[in-house]
């Protein structure tokens, strides 16, 4: 895959950015901008909506409309934007804590409505911005600032969550496989209904360090070791899949999108 020039989409005026050395979020943002460029989307048709957290801050570094909202509420803000302006591509970028814990309700209901948002979860399996507390995707046994004796909570599989809620494009990838990741992001953005992409993006500063996973390269290798493609996963037992990251596309279907349905309702009632 050729890398396109995306420098006009990136606002470097306030670099150095806030992300730590070795963080995966910059790779994920580049993949998003590459996907937007590949789709030939004009920048003014795209709105990036972030929540609160490390990942959510990346929306501040693009040369597009960007809204850095409140913790957990990015999907709800985006719902209002999409309903008011169905012609826009509305991207939500937020972390696992933001989307799956405090914002979980908005996530499942946006999926249920099949509203045309693209939700890109930068999943680093930890709360990074607040210094490394365990999140709904932190693997059991992991050390974190709030699980000093090892996490005992079971994890959320966010792809299965939004699939059950009604999402119509669902996929997972990691920042280790940028070409596949870029491809999935492009499909998620092009998708008319609610699309969700779980992007596994390691956090060396808090997850890696507290779990003694070594330097960023070693941490990325540990993610690679845990990665299983969806097809291979079908042949593995539940025990074998424990702690693994199943990647691939899980849902691709096209029932009516919410804002299109709403505009049909308005037209039927004589509204403009």
């Amino acid at each position, binding site marked *: 895959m050729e890398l396109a020039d995306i420098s006009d989409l990136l606002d470097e*005026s*306030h670099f150095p950015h806030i992300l730590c050395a070795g963080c995966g979020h910059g790779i994920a943002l580049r993949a998003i901008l590459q996907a937007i460029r590949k789709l030939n989307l004009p*920048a*003014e*048709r795209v*709105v990036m*909506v972030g929540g609160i957290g490390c990942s959510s801050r990346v929306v*501040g570094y693009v*040369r*597009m*409309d*960007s*809204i*850095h*909202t*409140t913790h*957990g*509420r990015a999907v*709800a*803000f*985006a*719902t*209002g*934007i*999409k*309903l*008011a*302006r169905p*012609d*826009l591509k509305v991207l939500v970028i937020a972390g696992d804590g933001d989307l799956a814990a405090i914002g979980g*309700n*908005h996530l*499942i*209901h946006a999926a249920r409505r099949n509203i045309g948002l693209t939700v890109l979860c930068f999943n680093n399996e930890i709360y990074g911005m607040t210094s490394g507390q365990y999140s709904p995707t932190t693997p059991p046994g992991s050390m974190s600032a709030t699980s000093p004796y090892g996490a005992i909570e079971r994890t959320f599989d966010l792809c299965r969550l939004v699939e059950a809620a009604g999402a119509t494009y669902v996929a997972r990838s990691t920042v280790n496989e940028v070409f596949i990741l870029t491809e999935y992001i492009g499909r998620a953005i092009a998708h008319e209904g609610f699309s969700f992409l779980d992007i596994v993006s390691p956090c060396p500063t808090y997850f890696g360090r507290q779990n003694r996973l070594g330097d960023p390269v070693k941490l990325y290798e540990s993610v690679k070791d845990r990665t299983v493609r969806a097809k291979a996963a079908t042949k593995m037992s539940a025990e074998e899949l424990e702690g693994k990251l199943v990647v691939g596309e899980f849902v691709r279907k096209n029932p009516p999108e919410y804002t299109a349905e*709403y505009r049909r*309702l*308005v037209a039927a*009632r*004589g*509204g*403009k």
Partner: protein
Amino acid sequence: MKTILLQGNEACARGAIAAGCRFFAGYPITPSSEIVEAMARELPLVGGSFIQMEDEIGSIAACLGASLAGVKSLTATSGPGFSLKQENIGYAAMAEIPVVVVNVQRFGPSTGMPTAPAQGDFYQTRWGTHGDHPVVVLAPWSVEETYRLTIRAFNLSEVHRLPVILLMDEGVGHLRERVELPEEGELAVWERPKPKEPPDLFDPVAHAGEEVPPMPPLGAGYRLRVTGLVHGSDGFPSESPETVAKLLRRLCGKVEGKPELLQAEEEGTDDARVLVVAYGSTARGAAAAVREARERGLPVGLFRPVTVWPFPEARIGELAAQAGEILVPELSLGQLSREVERAAGRRVRSLTRVDGNHWSPGEILAAIEEAGGWS
């Protein structure tokens, strides 16, 4: 003018449509649900958007998103729901997003009594969200005033780019009375400031000196940068002490010391020896009591704040200087009277009530007579 029978909550919805509101996101809650229902019915007919969100927080968040897209937005709730919306009211203040939030007060705290009137949210409307912030709160006492104030709430919210709270109560919200509504176009409708420059020439920094900078809609090429973090005029987060203080003082300055925001009604205040201060549905009983007293020749006056925040402290200070006794009936344990005391610079007679019922004119009249030494 057209005369119809209308409910307070329905008048709010009608006023919103007349003000140009074309987006509503809400969640059902007593005693404000008629507003959600009316907006669900009316908005599609005028090409607007309605959505029933999954919760109260999502409702105001969706409104803020729609407002950023350039559409006037309303959400309506009551007590518990209003508590849930607080964080995003602060976001609206910080990010300067126009939005109107209706709070039809009900008895609290907690679930309290959903269908009982109360005025216990007086301070929450002003100080509910964290941090110093600007907010305007308007409190109607009748169905017709609800209609007019809903339009004014949108007007103020738009031109000052801040959240405006319409503080109703169960008494006003569920009241049905005959009203004369203005014809369409009779009441002025104001719009938010928009940039005159095209997107490629627009530089937010060039507007740094303005109290209310222009607000481009998203999706128009302006490359809007919005955040709830303290930010410079370029929209980028900043922790420079100078930038931080400048922003906070500018935001709060939109409201403080602005007499044009204050709206109040007075009756018999010129010669009042006993001054009654009341707002919302309590002012209905107070007005009846004051009229009855004046018919008996007693020097009694009523001051009814319509803008309750910013609080009309200068006018209350003036009136307090000439009145002997000040009587403050309310449906809470002294929230309004505490603020009146601050403005008056002395103690007042606080008439508190927390049993789920309204003050009757007779009860307020008896208190007036006692205060004036006329009983």
